[in-house]
């Protein structure tokens, strides 16, 4: 009777459930808010998803290796400010150089995290809780209470968020959104096709087994933090382009948003499993709720955080309970096959 549940891969189940919830949420807000299905709303959500998605993908890579990166918000603020400062000083820099500089800066900050976690053997939560404060402090000291303003930035940066790559009907696909989706596609292909990327899962699901299998676990974890930093740096550049006016509080709280997007997207917080498709859906869900609540008349915008917290709890609880249930089913089937003499010994998982 429950046989079909076992034939479906848990990740497929997770993604389907998430897509269903997302559709329901959109339908719900559509019935509550006038003029909800407009091109403007789509643009608003897609440009804000563009930033969080980049961060969330990096976060997912780190979480898959059984770690966490709480410093991403500070890295976004740090790169947004420093790259802005660079552009104010040298407005003629080639756009690609600017993007490369943002990613290099993010990578450098990620490298500090990675070194301490992978080679210093300090737990990721401690390292990144520390660098969350440290990077922000460095930014405050560096900024000296000045802020970057739109007026001082070159024209192409200010116009980037409005730049449209192509349109589907009256929906504009913005360049920044396309960049984020492109990154998502590349990471998705890498995680599903590349042997090197599969090592992230190996290290996350069982570090000891990975080490015995000849995988350099330190290097894998270090690389995950590098990538997370690089993507946060890229997000910092997009953040700069989108908002133009950058103060020292830029990117504050993004670490929690990205962790929320990742766990809602079905990435196991204990590492070893997770998909980019899930992260895309999770990010979109969190952002749709965030952006819709501000326009919902019935509930004040102050409800956002409380609902976000509950959403994370429910998403992870559903995951935990479902895994436990599937595990029990699998073990029961093994036991019955065992008594028939057709199966190897059952093994506890999860």
């Amino acid at each position, binding site marked *: 009777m429950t046989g079909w549940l076992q034939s479906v891969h848990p990740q497929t189940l997770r993604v389907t459930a998430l897509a269903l919830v997302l559709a329901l949420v959109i339908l719900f807000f559509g019935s509550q808010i006038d003029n909800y299905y407009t091109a403007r709303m789509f643009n608003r959500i897609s440009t804000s998803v563009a930033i969080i998605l980049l961060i969330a993908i990096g976060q997912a890579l780190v979480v898959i290796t059984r770690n*966490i990166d709480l410093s991403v918000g500070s890295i976004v603020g740090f790169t947004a400010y420093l790259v802005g400062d660079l552009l104010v000083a040298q407005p003629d820099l080639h756009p690609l150089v600017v993007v490369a500089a943002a990613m290099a800066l993010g990578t450098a900050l990620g490298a500090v995290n990675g070194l*301490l976690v992978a080679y*210093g*053997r*300090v*737990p990721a*939560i*401690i*390292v990144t*809780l*520390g*660098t*969350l*404060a*440290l990077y*922000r*402090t*460095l930014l*405050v*000291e560096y900024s000296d209470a000045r802020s970057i303003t739109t007026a001082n930035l070159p024209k192409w940066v200010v116009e980037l968020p409005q730049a449209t790559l192509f349109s589907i009907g009256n929906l504009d696909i913005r360049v920044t959104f396309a960049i984020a989706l492109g990154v998502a596609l590349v990471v998705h292909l890498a995680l599903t096709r590349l042997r090197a990327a599969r090592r992230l899962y190996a290290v996350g699901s069982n570090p000891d087994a990975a080490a015995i299998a000849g995988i350099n676990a330190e290097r894998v974890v270090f690389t995950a933090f590098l990538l997370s930093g690089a993507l946060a740096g890229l997000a910092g550049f997009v953040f700069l382009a989108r908002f133009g006016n950058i103060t020292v509080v830029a990117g504050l709280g993004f670490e*929690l948003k990205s*962790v*929320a997007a990742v*766990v809602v997207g079905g990435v196991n*917080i*204990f590492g070893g499993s997770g998909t980019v498709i899930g992260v895309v859906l999770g990010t979109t869900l969190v952002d749709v709720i965030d952006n819709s609540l501000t326009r919902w008349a019935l509930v*004040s915008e*102050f*409800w*956002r*955080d*409380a*609902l*976000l*917290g*509950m959403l*994370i*709890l429910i998403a*992870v*609880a559903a995951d*935990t*309970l479902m895994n*436990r249930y599937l595990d029990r089913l699998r073990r029961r089937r093994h036991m019955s096959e065992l008594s028939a003499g057709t199966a190897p010994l059952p093994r506890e998982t999860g």
Partner: protein
Amino acid sequence: MRRLVRWELLLLVILAVTIVINSAMSPMFLTIGNQINLFQLSIEKIIVALMMTLVIINGEIDLSVASMMGLAACAFGWLFQLGVPAGVAIPMVLALGLLGGAFNAFWITVIGMPSLVVTLAMLIGFRGMARILVEDRGITGFPEWFNALGQQPILGPLPLALLVFAVLFVILLVVLHRSGFGRKVYVIGNSAEVARYSGVAVPRVKALLFIASGFVASLAGLLYTARVSAVRGDVALGFELDIITMVLLGGVSIFGGKGTLWGVLLSILIVLNLRNGMALANITGHLQTGVIGLLLILSVLVPNLVQSARLSFRPGSAAR
């Protein structure tokens, strides 16, 4: 155990050095008034840090404490605005703390979710509830006696919050280091599996600790409200960083099973003196936070490096 004793000795030396440097910088430093003031400025954090010590030794973490402090403060302000007398609002807020702790405990022990995720969600969630209650208002005008509780000395030179700290320290000292419950906290922290097979009621111990943590956080939130005699949505925002730093710097292992309250007391004194010293040297609050962050990383990195250095001097004795 020997490593821990050495760690506390190291803390004692660091503390002595900070005190000597600070008192050289300012003759006012070693006066009783300044020392009490020093405690008073972060008293809520250190009260929560005491309870956090037990939670982390138990192998868990509670990231939601600062948001619970904020929620308690905002709930008090909200009730007060509704016309509830402060004397009635106080027990209601403390009950809210118990409830919030029980809420965390439910997801962790009944559903079986990691405390890191649950309390991270409630770091957002409790703060969100606080914002629902007070939105972007500031609430003041509490009764005189309430504000006096936070600001006036009530026993000799000691204000109420310091007495609460002292009493809680003694209670937890007995519970953690002298009672059967305390042994269970260590056993679970070392290995929850071993504890379970030894017949320890693991979920019950964990649930009790999280409920107590919520309660202590709400008490600290009330003390904070009384001290600053005002409430806003961002009360205690980000305090969890300082609180966890104090505990880990005190030699408590983030993986559980190791650490003492005495170590945490020493690290509390170090952090307080460092902040005070930096303030005396005109270092701003933001830079102070950065230094605390650095300290947090070093407090785990240095013992790790020392240990691996020691291992590499004895080849063959231990592979990892």
